[in-house]
């Protein structure tokens, strides 16, 4: 797969169809992959990688590094493609400046799961077939891949690419998932239990803003938390409870636009399950307005920000938008 991608990237660069390539680049560790812009065949040969650690959603990176006067090739996994489609819908990226190649994803490895198992001194990790071999200073260990696959991949919502110019590999389809099971557990709690749960989780937040920086839905020109005029910026610093509200407000801001890509939880250094806040919104939207997947097609109108003559009446919202 990686070789095919490299070949195609070099072809498109050589033909002049694109001048830049956005993909994944190897870092210091095997499991530490970073998004990058490549502009030459040499760079691609040297650094380009696509493996089981390429979890980074390239849509946000593409948004940040977009250049509208030239064409950029970007490789997108299915979940990246949903995020990108949403960004195109919101006019945040120019579709015409992109050449999109959809690539399949068979589940990405969550190194934190390995670390959580007490493994330290990791030298390298290789993934072969269904096995993941971890070589450490203190010996080797092998896991079945599903044991160390990230939660978001185990609960994969779709293997389809809503937007692409070409595909490498086969096009997948929307998956049946149990991704709302965790939400159901939270819903089953009493309000007090739930409050305590979130207070506990959010108390670990160090406000590093990694979630916001990685989130493909967080693309405001100026974030309201950085805008002293918004009246929210200083509030968040008022006390620990207001601090916690940062995440609640952020979840509200991306409600209906969040595609459930799971980047917020992936990048959180404190392992706060932030994606559950967004998933609760998604599950509520599905319940109240009928099933809706953000980023499923360009120009889609989200139920929360839409006005149509067919708008459901408040009295039938509880019936899933059906009279």
């Amino acid at each position: 797969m990686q070789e095919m991608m490299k070949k195609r990237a070099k072809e498109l660069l050589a033909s002049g169809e694109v001048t830049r390539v956005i993909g994944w680049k190897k870092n210091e560790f095997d499991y530490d992959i970073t998004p990058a812009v490549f502009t030459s065949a040499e760079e691609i040969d040297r650094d380009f990688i696509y493996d089981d650690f390429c979890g980074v959603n390239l849509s946000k990176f593409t948004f940040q590094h977009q250049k509208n006067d030239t064409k950029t090739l970007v490789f997108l996994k299915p979940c990246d493609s949903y995020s990108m489609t949403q960004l195109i819908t919101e006019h945040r990226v120019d579709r015409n400046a992109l050449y999109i190649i959809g690539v399949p994803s068979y589940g990405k490895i969550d190194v934190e799961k390995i670390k959580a198992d007490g493994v330290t001194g990791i030298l390298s990790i290789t993934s072969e077939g269904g096995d993941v071999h971890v070589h450490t200073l203190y010996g080797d260990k092998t896991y079945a891949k599903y044991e160390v696959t990230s939660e978001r991949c185990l609960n994969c919502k779709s293997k389809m690419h809503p937007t692409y110019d070409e595909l490498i590999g086969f096009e997948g389809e929307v998956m049946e998932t149990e991704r709302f099971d965790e939400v159901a557990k939270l819903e089953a709690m009493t309000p007090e239990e739930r409050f305590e749960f979130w207070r506990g989780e959010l108390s670990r937040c160090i406000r590093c803003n990694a979630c916001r920086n990685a989130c493909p839905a967080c693309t405001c020109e100026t974030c309201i938390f950085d805008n002293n005029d918004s009246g929210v910026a200083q509030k968040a610093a008022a006390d620990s409870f207001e601090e916690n509200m940062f995440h609640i407000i952020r979840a509200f801001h991306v409600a209906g636009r969040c595609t459930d890509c799971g980047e917020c939880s992936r990048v959180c250094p404190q392992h706060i399950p932030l994606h559950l806040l967004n998933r609760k919104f998604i599950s509520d939207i599905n319940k109240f307005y009928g099933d809706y997947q953000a980023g499923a097609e360009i120009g889609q109108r989200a139920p929360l920000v839409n006005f149509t003559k067919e708008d459901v009446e408040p009295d039938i919202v509880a019936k899933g938008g059906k009279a």
Partner: protein
Amino acid sequence: MQKIGVFVCHCGTNIAGTVDVKAVAEALGKEPGVVFSAEYPYMCSEAGQNLIKNAIKDYGLTGIVVCSCSPRMHEATFRKTAAAAGLNSYMVEIANIREQCSWIHKDIKVATEKAIVLGRTAIAKVALNTPLTASSSPVVKRALVIGGGIAGIQTALDIADAGYEVDIVEKEPTIGGKMAQIDKTFPTLDCAACILTPKMVDCAQNEKIHIYSYSEVESVKGFVGNFTVSIKKKARYVDETKCTGCGLCTEKCPMKKTPNLFNLGLDNRSAIYIPFAQAIPKVATIDADYCNMLKNGKCGVCSKVCAAGAIDYKQKDQIIEEKYGAIVVATGFNPIKLDGYDEFAYNESPDVVTSLELERLMNAAGPNGGTLLRPSDKTHPKTIVFVQCVGSRDTTDCGKPYCSKICCMYTAKHAMLIRDKYPDTEVYVFYIDVRTPGKNFDEFYRRAVEEYGVHYIKGMVGKVMPQPDGKLLVRAADLIMNEQVMINADMVVLAAAIEPDKTARPLATMLTASMDTNDFFTEAHPKLRPVESPTAGIFLSGVCQGPKDIPETVAQASAAAAKVIGLLAKDKLLSNPCVAHSDENLCNGCSSCERVCPYGAISYVDKEFRMPDRTTKIRRVASVNAAVCQGCGACTVACPSGAMDLSGFSNKQIMAEVDAICR
């Protein structure tokens, strides 16, 4: 520096009865920025207003808070008061301590505490108010009436009479509506057509009135005084300007088996038709579902016989755009579908009919030329049972919770007419209550019982069972005699509930006019503004607002016309300065605001921005058309970056209010 004045109204005992107004005035006097605080028995009285005016002058107030009734009642009053004292009228905030406080609380302590919080909230808001100036917009001197029944006709005639242009949009090929289908009218028993058709002719002949028949409203844009409406003129396949209404085509058309909708499908007509003899406009229409020429290109008889050459099989729907200053909704009603009432065997037996069908069966232009015959075997019915409240005052899912209001009277009318014309026919009426409020209404009903010997039985019909001999066995309860009654009837007539026309709900959305849960349009005030919608420039006429009979409909139609004339008589309207605006530096251009805007007030422009790194970038940003914006605020909450804000209700002000409540 802010100098805020607080004025607490007693409203007699309305507020002072449950709120310690002195304590409220005292507490609010200590709020930051407040330099004057007073209470007074009636702040809206001249003396109360003078108190405000003097305080503004004496203390140099920069903003005032009036703690009183709902802003819907007196906000305009106090804005004028402020303006008279030289203060910008948008530096006024109302704290509603009556409807939202004193009226709903019994405990003085609790109510007083809440009144203080509400006052504090308004003070926090007024401190951030900025002076606003209303601009003015011209009024288009033309009205649109949607619906050409008796309500729409009367409204149009009255508006035209005042000298203004008025257009009627009617979805059927002719105006006239339900009244045209009715045989006789209560309580005078005069013929409906005899009193309606002269008004229809007046409409057609009035040069100020233009009728768009067989047309529907497609979209509505704009605001009071300046609506732009797209009207879809449906293809009738006949050129209206050429057709003379001679009717030759309807005679020659071979497709004679087309259900006659004007007679509610009780008989057939041809595929090309004129609904009834007095139709306005008297122009033929082709029913595309039945016409052979339109379906498979074989026939063309009408085109051959038409001397005027009016037939045009290639006619297409046409969209007409027109500007109006005011819009009147007169969309009327329909009887409900009776699918949920199997017990009355409506779908099983042709001899079970609705009251409107009975009107057609008894009408001279109806299927039997005015002789009442059973639909099944065309014999004279000897026993007729009327069932009242079929679907009215019915809280189950298939019924309507409200009283349809007209059924008691028209059933008495039917019973009386039948007894008068066919004295050998026994007539039974099953009722829950007989409701006859109206001039000469009870006398009318008494006549049915006392002079015409109609059998009124209090009780409900449980089941209608069609018998093999063609009779209908009716099982019912007589609640007064407390016994079960069995009647062998020849016909059963169901007084089906009425409901607003199905086109009303989508129309309400287009007009952003509110409706109740039964799809009746809501009035601006149920008692004091009964013919206006809460949406400025939209007026209500007839049953679209609630069940009513013909006299009431006509009265309301004229009332709506009076309101329209009052509006059209103005040359300019002051526009609301509380409109949205976008901070282009913050705007992402994401389209969220545009998508929630019910008025289409938001568009996007590409603008060049200087970026922090000294490059320039072309960005898509929102731009609000202030003339179209109605200040609903939907965009401000949809905007993820807080770029969209509403004058007079800024995000900061709302935040300050919330903070004041939570303090």
